[in-house]
């Protein structure tokens, strides 16, 4: 499937819903945990290298794109090499708690193939899980349809009329599937 990597790279530089350094392990058998800078932007989860030496060397260079990230208690992480190692589209994903401070992401077509993430606390783990579950377009669509229906029942008015999108197929109640 063809796609423009630059589009995704540009997206990865947008403000994140959540960003933190986490331990990450790929789905392949025998893969090891690596420290990654994980960044949730819209319905994509980007992960970057956290090579400290690399960061120190290139800081201040002409093509440096610097961003401040990191957990509130930890040191700020300056990201100067902004290309992600990879991205995960979060549609049709399942987020599961694996340990008190760890969760996994898998996808509907192969639920046993899991990407594992290690957090520094259960609190951080739950925070990420909640954010990831809400991070899909499908989730928002279902929420929108629900709210629209509730408001219509309570007020008798269609709240989407003001946006001029009440007729769009994607917002119809019939679009809700189990």
């Amino acid at each position: 499937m063809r796609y423009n990597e630059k589009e995704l790279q540009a997206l990865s530089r947008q403000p994140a819903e959540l960003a933190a350094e986490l331990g990450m392990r790929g789905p392949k058998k025998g893969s090891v945990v690596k420290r990654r800078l994980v960044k949730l932007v819209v319905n994509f989860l980007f992960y970057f290298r956290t090579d400290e030496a690399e960061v120190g060397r290139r800081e201040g260079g002409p093509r440096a794109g610097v961003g401040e990230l990191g957990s509130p208690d930890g040191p700020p992480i300056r990201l100067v090499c902004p290309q992600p190692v990879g991205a995960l589209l979060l549609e049709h994903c399942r987020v599961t708690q694996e340990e008190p401070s760890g969760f996994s992401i898998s996808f509907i077509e192969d639920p046993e193939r899991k990407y594992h993430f290690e957090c520094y606390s259960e609190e951080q783990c739950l925070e990420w899980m909640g954010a990831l579950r809400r991070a899909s377009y499908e989730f928002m669509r279902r929420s929108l349809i629900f709210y629209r229906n509730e408001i219509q029942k309570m007020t008798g008015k269609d709240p989407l009329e003001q946006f001029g999108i009440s007729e769009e197929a994607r917002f119809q109640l019939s679009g809700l599937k189990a």
Partner: protein
Amino acid sequence: MKLNERSVAHYALSNSPADHRGFLRTWGGPGTPPTPSGTGRRCWFVLKGNLLFSFESREARAPLGLVVLEGCTVELAEAPVPEEFAFTICFNAPGVRPYLLAADGPAAQEAWVKVLSRASFGYMRLVVRELENQLRDARQSLALHRHSSWKAGTSSCKTQPPDQLSRGLENGHTLSRDYSPMGLVEAGGSRPAGRNLAECELQGAASLLGRGQSPVSPETSCFSTLHDWYGQEILELRRGWRQRARGSQLKCEQQDKP
């Protein structure tokens, strides 16, 4: 850069609702010459959320390409583009080439431009948040109405002057005069005489909404979440009424003393 392509392709082909689909002629994009040449390639396009997939044909079993519709603007293509019913998808990011696409007719062109312009995650999130607020307002109005009719039976000691319920009424919903048996309503806003009540309401609803609990969540059983959601409101209201009843009783006693 790695991407979970297999999952992306699966999503493209899944029966999740498509926001739009149709045939479009395409130039630009990876693997094609930088300037439009020839009549372009006719592909089947499917828009799901902020993802525009292209397929060789309607029956294709795998997507040909993907365009992520974030940080872009969609516009009708202008001359000197010779193509009829053409439009472009331009990205703000440097180094990302625009896409040139052409529909089969003016109606299709207009429909595509409209739906692609609203495809971003941010737009969807805005609409959802707006509806969240509207639902919260509608529920507050309903609760206040219920509270007012309840209160009509109790003692009428005024405790505080009404404040503006600023957040709740920004969307143009004003409480109707029907809700003002105690003279609580002023133009544009009102607050029940008991401060705690409105705050509990806001906190109760906000905390549920803030936790991201949409009742239509795949993990929770729909009905029990809904039950808790509406039950919470009742519990908070009861707590508020009892507090107020105690409070206003005390106040009345104090006022009666010289």
